[in-house]
């Protein structure tokens, strides 16, 4: 059977996203468990997963809402944690040039860490394919669906899994699996090392701002090393 190019790109997006779900599903379940223990209702916890649709920001928001933090604090910390998405937006924008604004809005809504990670690799290899945006739709929708379902599982069933299993460790392990193969040269390795070390040093800075500072320093050092 000959698939048309759009369907094929969509299915490739699903295929490339699938392995990443192994790290996302436990994370979604843990979010469900944590949101309930923080005092959100089942309904609020589930709805946050499509309204906000950003893992780390959801963890932070659930925690801050439970502590009755002011609205401004929740928004500022969420914005800072999500700043990296502006950089994803910039990275991916040249490949989405000329699409109708509806497409751009939908793909922006779906632009999570995991969909970005799967689709940017595809875009770089298939720059000339006019239907490559379907790849991001495929990876994004699969991630979106898995996030909603795993949140629900976390809320209704996952609460039975003892936290002693340490399922939250699946998150950093997944990120290692994603980052390490991308360390193609010494500039990338230097960026990773500087960013990791500074993230430890800056850990005490509130609202995860240390993570943002460390990231920018890592990017800066990578650029500096490359241009030397």
């Amino acid at each position: 059977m000959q698939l048309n190019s759009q369907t094929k790109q969509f299915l490739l997006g699903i295929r490339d996203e699938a392995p990443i779900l192994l790290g996302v599903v436990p994370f979604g379940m843990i979010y469900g468990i944590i949101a309930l223990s923080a005092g959100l209702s089942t309904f609020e916890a589930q709805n946050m997963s499509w309204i906000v649709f950003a893992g780390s920001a959801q963890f932070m928001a659930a925690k801050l809402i439970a502590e009755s933090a002011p609205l401004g604090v929740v928004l500022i910390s969420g914005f800072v944690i999500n700043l990296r998405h502006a950089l994803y937006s910039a990275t991916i924008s040249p490949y989405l040039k000329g699409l109708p604004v509806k497409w751009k809005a939908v793909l922006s809504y779906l632009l999570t860490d995991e969909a970005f990670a799967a689709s940017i690799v595809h875009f770089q290899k298939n720059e000339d394919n006019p239907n490559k945006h379907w790849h991001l739709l495929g990876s994004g929708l699969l991630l979106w669906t898995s996030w909603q379902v795993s949140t629900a599982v976390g809320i209704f069933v996952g609460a039975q899994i003892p936290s002693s299993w340490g399922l939250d460790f699946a998150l950093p392990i997944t990120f290692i699996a994603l980052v390490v193969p991308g360390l193609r040269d010494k500039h990338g390795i230097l960026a990773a090392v500087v960013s990791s070390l500074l993230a430890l040093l800056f850990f005490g800075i509130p609202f995860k701002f240390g993570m943002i500072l460390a990231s920018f320093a890592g990017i800066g050092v990578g650029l500096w090393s490359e241009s030397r």
Partner: protein
Amino acid sequence: MSIWLTLILLGGLTFLTRFSFIAVFDKVEPPRNLKRALRFVPIAVLSAIISPELLFANGQFIWDWNNPKAIAAIIATFVALKTRNVILTIVVGMASFWVIRLLLPGK
């Protein structure tokens, strides 16, 4: 009520952050240096998330070589370097984490 306001504003802000450059770059060509910098974005951001996950617990730095997460992460890094296989890296990483915890009671 205020929880819903918080969720909707946070969701809107998250969307606008993701939409930002996608919305404007049709008209604005990204500067060459920004394009060069973006190669380092996933590397730097994910690294900054990983290291505190491994070396901090309850807001405290873990001054202990017998840290199952860190040891499992080193093993996973080697697997990722050798195989470049995402699933295998996650499976080996989680499995070594569980085995190491069994070998180091109380961790």
